[in-house]
């Protein structure tokens, strides 16, 4: 009787030991899988863009004409479009995101009003980009057109400026929430010291809080730039999708992401498709570098 129970327990425990080993192996395997996944993405992009790298070379990046019909590929209009929309959005967003960060981090960290603002910011980040695009196309484009008529420029409505406006709304949550975290890390002794010297609230923010959080706020801006560069759908819907070099910020254009979205399924020969994938590769590398740098800065900042 006891021997039967003994073997049963032995069997059971050896089973458990095997299960334990299996579990540990699965965990390691899945850890490896993440590395393989990212390397796979990189490799696929590189391999598939070889035809374009071979036949177009590096001058592809600053070629000014994009004319697939005649097999001429130059990515400069899209690089310019991406940079213009992203940096314009960044510049417009900075006052707002800093204001939110300072309000939530310094003026009113608690209370229903700041909760409301915090939830609003989170919901803004949650709205799908295609919905921003649709709303922008129907509501924002006519508004921009009226503005353009008043300014006396060609009233396209769609274009770089409209896309930048949509992007602004979309990226504010990222830099705002990060900025808030950073501002809350400011040691209260520093602020109290400044207050006890007779500084006003504004002076404390300007000469204690902001200098202390400088690098953290910069990292927040970098991460939201990463978002803006890769954003596809909302921009595609309001930018106008022309491959000409934009002549002003009100002109229609195209970004790297939006040209991929528009032309990928139409690309009918190898070099054309491969040129689009090379754009994807550039986009991938740029956003990865920006994200890594941003996260490094934040890590260093929060560890200090």
């Amino acid at each position, binding site marked *: 009787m006891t021997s039967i129970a003994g073997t049963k327990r032995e069997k059971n425990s050896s089973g458990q030991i095997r*299960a334990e080993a299996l579990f540990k192996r699965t965990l390691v395997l899945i850890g490896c899988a993440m590395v393989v996944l990212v390397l796979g993405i990189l490799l696929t992009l590189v391999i598939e863009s070889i035809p374009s790298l071979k036949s177009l070379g590096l001058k592809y990046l600053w070629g000014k004409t994009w004319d697939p019909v005649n097999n001429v590929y130059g990515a400069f209009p899209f690089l310019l479009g991406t940079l213009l929309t992203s940096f314009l959005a960044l510049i417009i967003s900075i006052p707002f995101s800093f204001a939110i960060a300072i309000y939530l981090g310094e003026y009113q960290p608690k209370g229903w009003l700041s909760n409301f603002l915090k939830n609003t910011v989170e919901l803004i980040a949650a709205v799908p980009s295609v919905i921003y695009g649709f*709303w922008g196309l129907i509501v924002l484009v006519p508004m921009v057109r009226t503005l353009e008529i008043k300014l006396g420029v060609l009233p396209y409505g769609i274009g770089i400026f409209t896309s930048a406006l949509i992007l602004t709304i979309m990226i504010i949550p990222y830099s705002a929430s990060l900025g808030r975290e950073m501002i809350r890390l400011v040691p209260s002794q520093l602020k109290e010291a400044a207050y006890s010297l007779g500084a006003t609230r504004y002076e404390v923010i300007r000469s204690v809080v902001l200098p202390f959080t400088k690098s953290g706020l910069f990292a927040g801006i970098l991460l939201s730039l990463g978002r803006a560069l890769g954003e596809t759908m909302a921009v595609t819907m309001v930018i106008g999708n022309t491959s000409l070099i934009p002549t002003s910020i009100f002109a229609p254009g195209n970004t790297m992401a939006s040209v991929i979205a528009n032309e990928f399924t139409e690309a009918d020969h190898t070099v054309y498709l491969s040129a689009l994938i090379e754009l994807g590769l550039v986009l991938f590398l740029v956003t990865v570098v920006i994200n890594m740098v941003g996260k490094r800065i934040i890590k260093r900042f929060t560890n200090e």
Partner: protein
Amino acid sequence: MQVRVKYRVVKSKLAQALIVFLAFVITLPLIAIILYIFKEGITKINWTFLTHIPKPVGESGGGIVNALIGSILIVFSASVMAVPVGILCGIYLSENKTGRLSYWSRLCVDVLQGVPSIVIGIVVYFWIVKPIGSFSAISGSVALAIMMLPILIRSTEETLKLIPFSLKEAGLALGLPYHRVILKVIVPCGMSGILSGILLSVARIAGETAPLLFTAFGNPYLNTNMTKPMQSLPLLIFNYATSPYDDWHDLAWGAALILLFTVLLLNIITKLTTRKWNVQL
């Protein structure tokens, strides 16, 4: 002296007013978007809208049942693929804080989080669509699953890190094998964080369009075969919103309302569950 102090105080007050104003301006676009989509969408939604496929151009009426079912299928199968992998990887990273593999693994999760969604679409096109030879719903699910992973992994890792080490020690001291300590003690304790990670990642991918453009592709007809092209709500909104036809715009508004409220609801539920579960812990 008095004037100088007054000047500084006024300046401080003005700065505060400006900051409060700028901070709350951001609520306007959100309210405007929600109200506008509600106004345009609510009149389009009725029983036909929910149970019929879109009519051809020129005929009014029709519905978006193909996109509704497509979205549910694609998102569901993406979750089935991503949730176990994401949670296990989160466990791995929280259990192995140092070490070369976990360093690289963590770095790759960071990289994955920043990859633009359109790039994932391209890559999955070459991994699945091209070898098979046709667009398919399952390839869309794979693309969305890749997008879910970093959110799931991060939230699991962050949650499990916070669980006291003594719990694990107690489990091991009772002679429980390692995997049972993790799965029966540690994971249930972190359930709230993991659950909110799952909900958040679903909310995030439910509205993703870019990775589906070259994978699920879209389909004007009702399809439940995962190996065939399938419509989804974001794809339908994109295709119909950029079309010149008013009837199609109507369908897109209705679809936008359904999508927006699903996503916002998921986010709100996430908040409530986290709060509730936190109290229980």
